[in-house]
């Protein structure tokens, strides 16, 4: 039936290193699909996805993730917005 991505455009993430926008969440899911299609064994897919996602995070300046379970979901107002340490958010 093919891969399908469900994406919440207001779902941000607070990681151990900083915060992430919903856009990064979409990138994360796209990477998952690509990693699966590349034939990476199931047991290695999560870690491979995080490694690749972190490469993107280093370029965008968003928070990296220690592993696939690093992060707590939080609502932000738009796809390019992310939480700031003072409880606000920055967008764009």
């Amino acid at each position, binding site marked *: *039936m093919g891969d399908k991505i469900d994406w919440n455009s207001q779902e941000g*993430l607070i990681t151990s290193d900083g915060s992430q926008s919903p856009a990064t969440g979409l990138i*994360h899911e796209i990477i998952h699909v690509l990693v699966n299609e590349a034939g990476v064994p*199931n*047991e290695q897919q999560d870690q491979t996805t995080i490694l690749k996602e972190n490469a993107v995070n280093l370029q965008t300046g968003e928070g990296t993730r220690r592993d*696939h379970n*690093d*992060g707590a*979901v939080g609502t932000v107002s738009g796809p390019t917005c992310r939480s700031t340490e003072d409880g606000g958010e920055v967008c764009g």
Partner: protein
Amino acid sequence: MVRLKYIILTTIVLLQGCGESGEVDIYYDGFWTKHRVYQSEAQLEETAKIKIKKLDIKLLSDEASTYLFYNFGVSNNANIPEDIVFMALIRSLDGKLKRKIIGDGIYLYDVTNNLFKVLDDDQKDYLRCFFTKYASEPVIDEKLESHCIKYKN
């Protein structure tokens, strides 16, 4: 010795199997589903795409019963599921929890007996169609409905 342990444990599971009366609650979010951050059992219970409540175990097809409840075994390499996309709670008719099985995209884990199994894609596909059929609330997905016609007699 390990093999003997496997045989004994498998026998125990088969003997206590699900041939008797009882009910099962099933929470299913997709065997191929991955979440941005791992999903807990509590989160699955709350937001599962498919919920089946108090299904009489006798209504399970032979295939569904076999795939879900039998042929679990000891595995030293398997990891206990972290991103929970499946949970089955098997209860006796008086409501007492008899067996609990959780699953991620790779393993089914029998929490009660500390045993594992791996479903292949065909088995996962059969089960998702079976769950769709018995969902407590109708699943509105025409593509899936069309896909699952092949399993209807």
